């Protein structure tokens, strides 16, 4: 098992290096001027030159290549001088030391932005995944057991609709249904925002009298504080917890539906396959109740592909988060990244895509390892 994990870790190194490279160059080739994008079209050349010096954007991107107002310039004579003194080396140095730089638009460290905005996206993605997995797996099992029944046909038709409806359309439909059609009934839900207007979350550091704390520990504490449902749970503010959950229901459903449909389909087909295998027939021949056959014998093996699929949903969820956060007026990673791309905030683009891609690789690693742990055949092949 250790050998398998090591091999898997080694395999992800080239991918991580590739990600670091792609993130840097992708951020640079996006045309447009970060200075004018953040200071406005009327910024003078003089102001912009100072701006570029402040953010190190006047330096060569890679040895000899500069970004100019019109595009890219190659100055071969500068290659030796800029061999080490260029944006790429500076970027690599920062990545290695874990310094993500300052946002061009907000002028604040990106780590602060992340601490403020990543928790929301994590919360949203987790609830979406929870919803998708619980409902998806249950629907998949019911469909497989009652194959070709109206329940099965209906579930699969809904699953088809689920993978076909765009996240932003579903989000808008949910807003309309739960905020307009059901207004005044107990089922009405707030259509946007993270908490009811005027309600504020207290940072954990303040709630626990730990304001003297500094450094990374404080950063971590602030990060956790911004996972509102967790914050309210540990500070026992159940009124606020309810408010936070109520606001999270619609976005989580909108975001999780595609994954739900995929999980339901995989669960169904996987369980159907296992139910047709010889060992299941043996279990039935022993006279076991169908319940036991499904629960004790079939489900365990049928869940293997489901684990992989659940892990792979993270990418879909993060992509969908851009849309969900826009629709539901939530300030998370997705929306920040989108605004950074359109606003040419290179530092934020770099940092956020890097975090997302690395997170994705790590999750895939965890999925693969847990898969190998669940299914010994993988380890030894």
């Amino acid at each position, binding site marked *: 098992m250790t050998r398998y994990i090591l091999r898997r870790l080694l395999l992800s190194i080239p*991918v991580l290096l590739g990600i670091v490279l*792609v993130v840097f160059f992708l951020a640079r080739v996006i045309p447009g001027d970060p200075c004018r994008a953040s200071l406005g079209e009327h910024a003078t050349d003089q102001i912009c030159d100072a701006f570029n010096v402040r953010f190190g954007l006047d330096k060569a991107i890679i040895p000899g290549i500069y970004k100019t107002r019109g595009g890219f310039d190659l100055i071969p004579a500068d290659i030796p001088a800029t061999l080490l003194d260029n944006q790429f080396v500076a970027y690599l140095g920062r990545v290695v030391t874990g310094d993500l730089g300052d946002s061009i638009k907000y002028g604040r460290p990106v780590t602060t932005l992340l601490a403020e905005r990543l928790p929301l996206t994590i919360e949203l993605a987790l609830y979406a995944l929870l919803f998708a997995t619980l409902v998806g797996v249950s629907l998949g099992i019911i469909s497989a057991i009652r194959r070709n029944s109206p329940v099965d046909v209906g579930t699969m038709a809904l699953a088809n609709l689920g993978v*076909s409806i*765009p996240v*932003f359309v579903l989000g*808008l*439909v949910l807003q*309309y249904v739960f905020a307009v059609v059901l207004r005044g009934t107990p089922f009405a839900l707030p259509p946007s925002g993270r908490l009811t207007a005027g309600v504020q979350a207290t940072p954990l550091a303040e709630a626990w009298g730990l304001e003297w704390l500094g450094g990374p520990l404080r950063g971590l504490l602030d990060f956790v504080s911004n996972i509102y449902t967790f914050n309210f749970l540990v500070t026992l503010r159940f009124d606020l917890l309810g408010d936070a959950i109520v606001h999270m229901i619609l976005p989580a459903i909108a975001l999780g539906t595609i994954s739900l449909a995929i999980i339901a389909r995989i669960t169904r087909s996987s369980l159907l396959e296992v139910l047709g295998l010889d060992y299941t027939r043996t279990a039935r021949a022993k006279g076991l109740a169908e319940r036991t056959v499904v629960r004790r014998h079939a489900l365990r093996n049928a869940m293997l592909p489901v684990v992989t699929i659940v892990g792979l949903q993270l*990418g879909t969820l993060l992509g969908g988060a851009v849309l969900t956060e826009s629709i539901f007026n939530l300030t998370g990673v997705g929306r920040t990244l989108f605004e950074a791309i359109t606003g040419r905030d290179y530092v934020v683009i770099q940092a956020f895509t890097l975090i997302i891609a690395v997170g994705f690789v790590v999750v895939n690693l965890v999925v693969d390892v847990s898969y190998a742990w669940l299914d010994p055949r993988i380890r030894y092949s």
Partner: protein
Amino acid sequence: MAGTLTATDGASGDGLATARVAGPWRDKLRMLLRQRSAVIGLIIISILSFAALFADVIAPHPPNKALNGPGEPGRRAQPCVHLLGCPADQPQTLLGTDGNSRDLFSRTLHGARVSLVVGFATAGLAVLIGSTIGAIAGFAAGGLDNGLMRVMDVMLAFPALVLAIAIASTLGRGLLQSLIAVAIVSIPIYARVMRASVLSVRGLDYVTASRALGETNRGLLVRRVLPNALTPMIVVGTLGIGTAVLETAALSFLGLGMQPPDAEWGAMIASEFNGILTRPLIVLVPGFALTLLVVGFNLLGDGLRDTLDPRLDR
């Protein structure tokens, strides 16, 4: 799809080969038409294609014309059909008008044109490039295979939509740019499917036999391996059209795709989504059309998979 395949095969040999190949594909087509999901999918796609093709004839108004003159419905008008009891002195509109007084029904029809073309073009481009990469990787094996596939892994490490947003902003705003961005993002999926498919065919006896008969590498790949490795691509490609439609619409929704005033479903939703609580129809009509089109392609894709994948024979 079946037509293209027979054509490729026909080019490789004599008339006899063509006749023999046509048989199984006609069988498959018959099987496909017996599938409920495939038939429903085909009907949906046909209806929307018809709407797109004849949008100019069916649409009561030009899609970009503001109907705010005297005797015209004006801004964000409610639907009004005289036959359904709307007072005769009010101007008729089937689904009402949008925030710029344009006829919603006409715009939705014209949007079908954009989404269909975008879906086919994007998936086609991605399938072409992706399957070429996958075929080369699978057939060449070794270092080239490893290199190509690691590049694909890196691309897959980014959430598709996030990468598409980044590429689309690099290329600039516009429908063509967003189409290219979505196509690039979906290349790795097709490359992987094609590679796996080529790998499974490459080692078969008939390929070894051809090699022994002196067939060149190129000939082996193009004439012997590819025709038998294409089946999964047809299925994934059809499902990919739906995904392509969804993703380009998402880019348009975010303002990176089709630019105003042209009618595109994602952009139509984007310009009115703040009014969802007051005038839902303006948002829900293009949203429904978008969903319907994707449902169509997904149903057809599912039907194709059930027909073409022998492992699922029941």
